[in-house]
């Protein structure tokens, strides 16, 4: 059975000045599959997702999302996917409902459908009872649930999840994955995820790519990867492929800002 390829990446390169963040990677994802993109910090995962989701322009190479190029057919690509970013991207001062509504209007969904879907989705992630509360009062887990619900309002064909379960308790993690796998089965929605939890990747994904220093070092099912590396677990395989050295990431502007916000305290 040959499924339609919903994500196609050919010889993708992304340079920031002299630094090569993504070095000539190629892969594709079939429609309706769950694809895990794994790698140590700074391996190029987020950069790749940003290119796939039109936030960054590729330096070289070809990308097709749902048959469209993110560079030329930006709007059609944007209608095709939903995304949950690594960092929260909700407006803290709006309520849960307003955040959902904002998104729906941005995706051009009319009022009737909008109301119905928002209610449906907020119920699914068990936030309907708190829909009128400002998001700043939510816990990390609640915010994540809300973001996933939000990413699904426009019925995307692909859902991108960039480390969606980071910092969440096991209950919330299980809840989220169960829900995502359900959506994937029911709606044939393709899922593209990154995570540092190898067991999660192993459990839910159909195909795994391991990326390091901007290059894909292994791609296949979890069993294939384990067999090829003679490992008993995906984590072992991952460590064999990417080494044991801990990757240092530089503090970004964001970290400075977090500090700044704490010092400033008030202004938001």
């Amino acid at each position, binding site marked *: 059975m040959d499924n339609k390829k919903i994500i196609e990446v050919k010889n993708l390169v992304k340079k920031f000045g002299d630094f090569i963040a993504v070095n000539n990677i190629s892969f594709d994802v079939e429609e309706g599959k769950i694809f895990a993109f794994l790698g140590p910090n700074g391996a190029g995962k987020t950069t790749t997702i*940003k290119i796939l*989701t*039109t*936030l*960054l322009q590729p330096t070289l190479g070809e990308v097709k999302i749902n048959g469209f190029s993110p560079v030329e057919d*930006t*709007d*059609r690509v*944007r*209608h095709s*996917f939903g*995304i949950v*970013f690594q*960092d*929260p*991207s*909700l*407006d*803290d*001062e*709006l309520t849960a409902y*307003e955040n959902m*509504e*904002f*998104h729906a*209007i*941005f*995706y*051009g969904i*009319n*009022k009737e459908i909008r109301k119905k879907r928002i209610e449906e989705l907020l119920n699914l992630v068990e936030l309907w009872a708190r829909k009128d509360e*400002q998001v700043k009062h939510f816990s990390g887990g609640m915010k994540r649930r809300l973001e996933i619900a939000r990413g699904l309002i426009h019925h995307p064909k692909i859902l991108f999840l960039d480390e969606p379960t980071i910092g969440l308790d096991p209950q919330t993690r299980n809840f989220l994955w169960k829900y995502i796998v359900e959506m994937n089965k029911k709606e044939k929605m393709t899922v593209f995820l990154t995570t540092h939890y190898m067991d999660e990747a192993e459990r839910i994904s159909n195909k795994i790519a391991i990326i390091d220093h901007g290059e894909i070092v292994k791609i296949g099912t979890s069993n294939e990867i384990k067999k090829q590396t003679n490992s008993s677990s995906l984590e072992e395989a991952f460590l064999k492929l990417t080494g044991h050295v801990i990757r240092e990431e530089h503090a970004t*502007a*964001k970290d*400075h*800002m977090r500090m*700044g916000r704490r010092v400033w305290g*008030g*202004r*938001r």
Partner: protein
Amino acid sequence: MNSPLYIMWLRQLKRYWRSKARIVGSLAQPILFLVALGFGFGPIFQKAGGGSYLEFLAPGIIAMSILFTAMFNGIEIIWDRQFGFLKETLVAPVSRYSIMLGRTLGGATVALIQGIIVFIISLLIGFRPVNLSMILISFIFMFLIAVLFTALGTAIASRLEDMQGFQLIMNFIIMPLFFLSGALFPIESLPEALKIVTKINPLSYGVDGIRACLTGISSLGIFMDFFILLIVSLIILSIGSYLFSKIEI
């Protein structure tokens, strides 16, 4: 009411309305200026033959509060950028121009409201506009400077990664714009070099326009004020839109 532009505008208003502490905090400064300077310099101004200083000062302080609110609203885009909400809007199938425009108009509306509140406070303190029918026209001037400086804040913030540059903006842009605009003192009797600076400063035309409407005194001419403000606003708005469209996350 389903357009991204509208919802973006509404968001700015909701955010303003929901942080009451911020509203109160940002009114403290104009009130202090009105009271301290108004009553402090009043007698000297009068002795020098300038008439009532409060009459002269109030339009300037209204313009000041709009300048500050508008610039901060524009600069706040850095927060949106770092704390993710901007990303959510940038991956949506909506043109960046309508995001920028909605946000700017929202910020400008907030700044206009702030200006009107300061106007009302100045009435309570003793400011008496001469021509009541011109009050509405003065709101047009207030809105124009609000748009201009929200767009300017957005333009600057589009090129900044974090708030490190904030002090620079405050001391090298906002403060000079304010002090050299004729908000606090008449510009006619300034030395030539400073006079040129005030002529380049778009806020001067805003202050003069508001003053012309509310007190009938103008040094530059109300039509001149209007057209210069309009043109500069459109130019800055286009530059801001361009810079905003180039943001990479």
